[in-house]
Every structure is written in structure tokens, then in C-alpha cells.
């Protein structure tokens, strides 16, 4: 009898792949072994002899020679010995012996389990049909829902440990209580970051078995991990320490495998010799203005939709298509000192074209249905698209190059220039520009804003959207000085509510009391719809901050209101001397500002132990982010 299951996870077993299946109807879990082939790839000066020896060894199922294209531009080919085995241990053994005999092991990425799943068409976190000993993949549609599972998501927020499970949220002061809470229930999926997972394991070793599957790459939402598994064929068991970059590289690797492109990590696309002028002019990021600080009225923010991925797809930008020496159809871009070859489609554009389509689809689905699952998937796809550009210039990128990276950034700068001129020709003024976003002053209504977006789209040929329309937008000064900061602004939206970017209250290391103070002050500003109302609102907002100042001075606060959550990327072994709290404590760092600086919070009362002036200085910073009390 045929039955449908979710393919939850895959591990390598001694006799093939061990599939972990879940039936939503019967709420049962099932494990099934599936015999699938694994492939090994070796390069030798005498491939026929290697094939003969491999066949003779009887360690493998079969071996043969194939022509594969080699990097950097995949125009010339090489003979590759391909062998097949049904045991992962044998694959590894043969490759190890081959390398010890001087053969070159290529195509060592992606993981053989991922490649086996790809070849079998088995996508993790989609449905399969089981009939007897056979497992058949079922068609996956992006509109389908995710599996219904018991999920616990663990993270740190506002100095407290938070466990979110099945709609309920538990907050804990210490890891011990958190661990006790987590092990009290058996979950299907656990999500946290690696640092917190290690702390939990130290406290309670049985935590590993309190969830069937652990994702420890960060406290992302379950739907985001599921989407990454589906896009890259990486099963959750291999997702543990996988970065977003690895997800996109795996997708590119699988595309390369289809085309018989050799993946050789030792090959680099070497940058040609360049003079200093060329380097300074071209080796840059996107357009970032230094906006003039102040309050602006009727501001329209227009964003390009997935600008960088769309540039990559439109201009066929990939490491192997930029600056190709022998190319028939060359495109010379007037704004970039590089050429792009259009003779074939690049690996990067092909890999991300589907993601660009999916992002738009999820946006539309979320708009029409309001279901959170589509918003989560959109966020997941967006992360991968962001990484796809970043990885283009990463030195270890398999399908990137500095030149390809530069073509993307120079194209974006050119397009932003075209957009600016188009907006100015309509009689508006551009007050700020940030990579793929333009802020236009004097746009009274959302409809007018849509017209501006339409003109930008028509002029540049790239799709845009109205990101926000502000009744007013405030750009604060720098902490020291009177200049504006590119990524710090907030404003009142004409659709209701406020948008806050980069200011103190949105930072994760802001103590709750300071966050609350700024939010209350901004609530006062949010009342203002006219310049006259704003004058009053600014005075009220500063009065709110004065109230919090008095509260701090009088010691009228709870301990948790002062806690600061910090992460420290460098770790103890960083080449920069880590701060005291890193040397004395364990991540994630829950701190308070004591007389000796930032100190690990131990749960003891903070009365008479805190440096109130530290928090008062933070309030000063909050005040500097508001329009001055003298605003008229």
C-alpha cells in the first residue's frame, strides 16, 4: 500500500541512505534505508589505467572515463575517472587511496549525501511516497504548507533566555532553568545557535535527545531552515553548522554537476594587474550617500526589487563568464572595466534565477493569503539571494571572482545614477540613496510615490516597489558631529505606524529600559502629522526621556531592565584582545554596566552595583537621535 510521508532528515547508513520519514496522518515516524549510488571523481594522467585498476579492485560497482570542463572558464575539458559505489565508506576509502597514489580528487563538493539525494530527486522537507521497499519523490509546489511538527526555538532577548514552543513563550534568567524547561518535553525540531546549544549541553547532556532534529545555525524560524533544505538538498543532519553561503554554493555546485563542470577548490580566478586609480574607482560597493541630518516631510522610499540578483541574472554575471579570453558574444558594459561573455549561461545566474522568481511568488502569496509561512519562506530566499552576491567576491567562492563582483556593484551605481536623474527630472529632490533604495522628498501621496517608482522602473529597466511612504522622516546626527548617518533613520508611515532603522532601540544590545524610553519618546513624535504638531511632540518626547533619567537616578528600576545582551564574534582566541566579559564569562553574554565596566550578570540583585552613568549616557544618545528641543 502506498503512503505519503515527509522526508524529514537523511543520514548516511552502512547500507545506503537512512531516510527519516514522518507521516502527518498517523503522526508517526519511520526510518527507511534506501540504496542509492555515490560517485567519486579522480583526475589522472592515465585515466584508462585507473579505471582498469578500480574495476579490478572490486571495491566499487563500476568505473568509467568522462570528459568534464575545467575552471576557471570551463572552455577546455579534461578526462575524469568517475566511479560508482553504494557504500559511502567505500567511496571515502577509494578516494583516500587514490589521493595517496597521486591522483587528484575533484568534485569533493557538495557532500556525497547531498549529491545522492539530488540524483535521486529526493528533496528534504518535501513529501515522498513509500510503497514496499521503494521511495518515490512527490512533486513539490511552493504553495504547499510545511510539516506540522512540535518545534522549540531558543534564543536570548533582552538579557533573558527565551524558549518559544507551540505558541507559548518561556523566559528564564539562567541556562539551568532553560535546560530544565526544554528537556521536560520531547520536540520534533529544536532551533538555536551553536553557542547556546553548547551551553545547554554543558548544563544538561540529554538535551541532544530532547528534539529529533536540531538546527544550530542560529535562531532562525523553522520555515527558513526548511526552505534552505529544499533549495539546496542539504538534509537537516548536515545543516548544523551550514552557513547561508554554503546553501548557495551547494546550489551552484549541483548546477555545475549537471553541466559536467569540474569543481576544484584549488583553482582561483586570478585578478589581472591593475593600477591604483582603477582599483580605487572600481573596487567599491554600492552607492551610499551621506544624508543631511534633519526632518523631511512627505518622503517616498523606492526600492529596487532584488537589485543585485537581478543584475546578475540580466547580465549573466558569474565568475566563469566575466573577462573570458576567448568568447564569441562579448558584452562590454560602459560603466564597468570588464566584459561579460554571453556564449553560455553562467552557473551563478542560473542558480539564483529560480530564487528571484520564488521571492516574488512568496511575496504575492503572502499578500493574497496573509499566511506567515510564505513570509518566512520569502525571508529565507532573500537571505540566500543576499549571500549570492556576497559570495561572488569571496576569495574562496567556487563560482565567483573579484571582477564579477565589481561588474555587479558598478552596474548598481550606474542604475542608481540613472534613477536619481529620472526623479530629479520629475521635479523632486533625492535626499538619500542607500545601495538599492532612493529617498525622494516632496512626494505627497502613496499614488504619487507609485508614479515615481514607475518612472524609475521604466528608465532603468529594473523592477522597483514603493518600500515606504513617510509623512515625515527624521535623519539623526552622528553621535559626534553634525553629519548624517546613511543607515540610521526613522519616520511616520502614511499607512500607519513607524519605521525605525539603526537607532538605539532596534539594536540588540540595548538594555530594555533604554529601549522602552526611546519607544515612548517616539510614540510622542508619532502623534505629529504637521510641522506645528511636531514642535509640541518634540518637547513631549524630550520630557519622556527626562522622566526616565529621573527614574534611573532614583534607582526606580528592575534588574532585568538594565541587562545588556551582547554577542562577540571574535571569541577568546581573536587576535584583538577580547573584552573582559568575554574572558570571564560564557556566551551568550548577559551583562550589566557595573563600576568595573560591563560585567556578567549572575542573578544577584543589581541595587548599588550598577554604573547609572553608563545608562544615563545611553539616554543622552537616545536624546541625540530625536529632533532637538529647539526644533521649530
Amino acid at each position, binding site marked *: 500500500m502506498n503512503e505519503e510521508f515527509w522526508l524529514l532528515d537523511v543520514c548516511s547508513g552502512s547500507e545506503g541512505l537512512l531516510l527519516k520519514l514522518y507521516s502527518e496522518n498517523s503522526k508517526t515516524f519511520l526510518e527507511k534505508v534506501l540504496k542509492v549510488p555515490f560517485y567519486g571523481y579522480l583526475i589522472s594522467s592515465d585515466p584508462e589505467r585507473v579505471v582498469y585498476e578500480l574495476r579490478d579492485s572490486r571495491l566499487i560497482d563500476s568505473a568509467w572515463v568522462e570528459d568534464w570542463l575545467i575552471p576557471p572558464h570551463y572552455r577546455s575539458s579534461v578526462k575524469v575517472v568517475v566511479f560508482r559505489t553504494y557504500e559511502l565508506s567505500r567511496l571515502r576509502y577509494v578516494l583516500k587511496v587514490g589521493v595517496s597514489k597521486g591522483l587528484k580528487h575533484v568534485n569533493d563538493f557538495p557532500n556525497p549525501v547531498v549529491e545522492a539525494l539530488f540524483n535521486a530527486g529526493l528533496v528534504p522537507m518535501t513529501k515522498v511516497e513509500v510503497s514496499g521497499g521503494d521511495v518515490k519523490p512527490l512533486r513539490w509546489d511552493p504553495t504547499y504548507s510545511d510539516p506540522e511538527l512540535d518545534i522549540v526555538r531558543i534564543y536570548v532577548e533582552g538579557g533573558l533566555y527565551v524558549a518559544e514552543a507551540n505558541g507559548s513563550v518561556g523566559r528564564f534568567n539562567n541556562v539551568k532553568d532553560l535546560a530544565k524547561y526544554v528537556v521536560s518535553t520531547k520536540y520534533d525540531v529544536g532551533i538555536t545557535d551553536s553557542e547556546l546549544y553548547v551551553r545547554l549541553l554543558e548544563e544538561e547532556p540529554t538535551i541532544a535527545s530532547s528534539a529529533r532534529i536540531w538546527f544550530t545555525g542560529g535562531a532562525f524560524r523553522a520555515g527558513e531552515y526548511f526552505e534552505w533544505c529544499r533549495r539546496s538538498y542539504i538534509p537537516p543532519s548536515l545543516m548544523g553548522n551550514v552557513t547561508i553561503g554554503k546553501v548557495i554554493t551547494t546550489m551552484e555546485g549541483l548546477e555545475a554537476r549537471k553541466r559536467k563542470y569540474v569543481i576544484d577548490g584549488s583553482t582561483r580566478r586570478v585578478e589581472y594587474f591593475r593600477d591604483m586609480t582603477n582599483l580605487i*574607482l572600481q573596487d567599491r560597493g554600492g552607492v551610499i550617500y551621506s544624508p543631511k541630518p534633519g526632518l523631511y516631510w512627505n518622503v517616498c522610499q523606492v526600492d529596487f526589487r532584488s537589485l543585485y540578483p537581478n543584475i546578475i541574472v540580466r547580465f549573466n554575471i558569474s565568475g566563469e563568464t566575466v573577462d573570458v579570453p576567448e568568447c564569441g558574444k562579448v558584452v562590454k558594459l560602459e560603466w564597468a572595466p570588464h566584459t561579460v561573455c554571453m556564449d553560455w549561461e553562467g552557473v551563478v545566474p542560473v542558480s539564483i534565477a529560480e530564487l528571484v522568481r520564488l521571492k516574488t511568488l512568496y511575496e504575492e502569496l503572502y499578500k493574497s493569503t496573509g499566511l506567515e509561512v510564505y513570509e518566512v519562506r520569502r525571508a529565507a530566499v532573500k537571505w540566500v539571494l543576499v549571500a549570492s552576491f556576497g559570495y561572488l*567576491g569571496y*576569495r574562496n567562492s567556487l563560482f565567483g571572482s573579484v571582477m564579477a563582483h565589481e561588474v555587479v556593484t558598478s552596474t548598481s*551605481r550606474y542604475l542608481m545614477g540613472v534613477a536619481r536623474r529620472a526623479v530629479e527630472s520629475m521635479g523632486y529632490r533625492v535626499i538619500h540613496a542607500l545601495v538599492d533604495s532612493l529617498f525622494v522628498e516632496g512626494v505627497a501621496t502613496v499614488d504619487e510615490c507609485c508614479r515615481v517608482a514607475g518612472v524609475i522602473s521604466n528608465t532603468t529597466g529594473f523592477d522597483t516597489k514603493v518600500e515606504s511612504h513617510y509623512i515625515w522622516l527624521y535623519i539623526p546626527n552622528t553621535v559626534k558631529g553634525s553629519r548624517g548617518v546613511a543607515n540610521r533613520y526613522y519616520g511616520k508611515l502614511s499607512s500607519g505606524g513607524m519605521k525605525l532603522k539603526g537607532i538605539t532601540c532596534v539594536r540588540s544590545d540595548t538594555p530594555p529600559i533604554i529601549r522602552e524610553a526611546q519607544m515612548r519618546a517616539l510614540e510622542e513624535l508619532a502623534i505629529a502629522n504637521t510641522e506645528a504638531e511636531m514642535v509640541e511632540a518634540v518637547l513631549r518626547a524630550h520630557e519622556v526621556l527626562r522622566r526616565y533619567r529621573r527614574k534611573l537616578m532614583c534607582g526606580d528600576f528592575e534588574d532585568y531592565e538594565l541587562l545588556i545582551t551582547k554577542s562577540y564574534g571574535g571569541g577568546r582566541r581573536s587576535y584583538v584582545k577580547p573584552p573582559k566579559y568575554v574572558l570571564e564569562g560564557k556566551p551568550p553574554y548577559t551583562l550589566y554596566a557595573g563600576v568595573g565596566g560591563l560585567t556578567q550578570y549572575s542573578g544577584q540583585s543589581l541595587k548599588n552595583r550598577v554604573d547609572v552613568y553608563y545608562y544615563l549616557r545611553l539616554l543622552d544618545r537616545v536624546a541625540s537621535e530625536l529632533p532637538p528641543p529647539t526644533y521649530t
Partner: protein
Amino acid sequence: MGRNTTPMKQIINNYVVRLEKVAGMLSPQEREAILYFLKDLDETTSLLSHIGVVDPLEVLLIHFLRKLGRGYFKPI
């Protein structure tokens, strides 16, 4: 990209600080002219971020030409 250079905006800012110091030693009229010239320099820096800048003095020169073009400068 792994290549570290001081951001162009920082270098330009250093020039501004120097110019402000020079302005402090000049007569009030000349000081006013220099401070007036430095006003809205960020706007020119932003504009040039589209095409890039090799020499930070280029920004000051273009800014000067923009102000001159707008007829802001009169003989002292």
C-alpha cells in the same frame, strides 16, 4: 574584498577639519567664506559616490565649482 583603505569620506572629512582650522586663523570675512564653501559638502561627496573618487581634493574642487556655478562666491 579584503583590501583595506581609509574610506574616502573619512579622508575628505580630515581635509574639512584642516580647512576649518585654517579658517580659524583668518579674518571673519574670509572665515565666513570658507565655512560657507564647506557647507553641504556631503551632498557633493554623495553625488560622486556614483562614479567614484580617486583624489579627495577632487571632491573639494567639484564642490567649489558647484558653488561658483550657483553664484555663491563674491569678491571679498
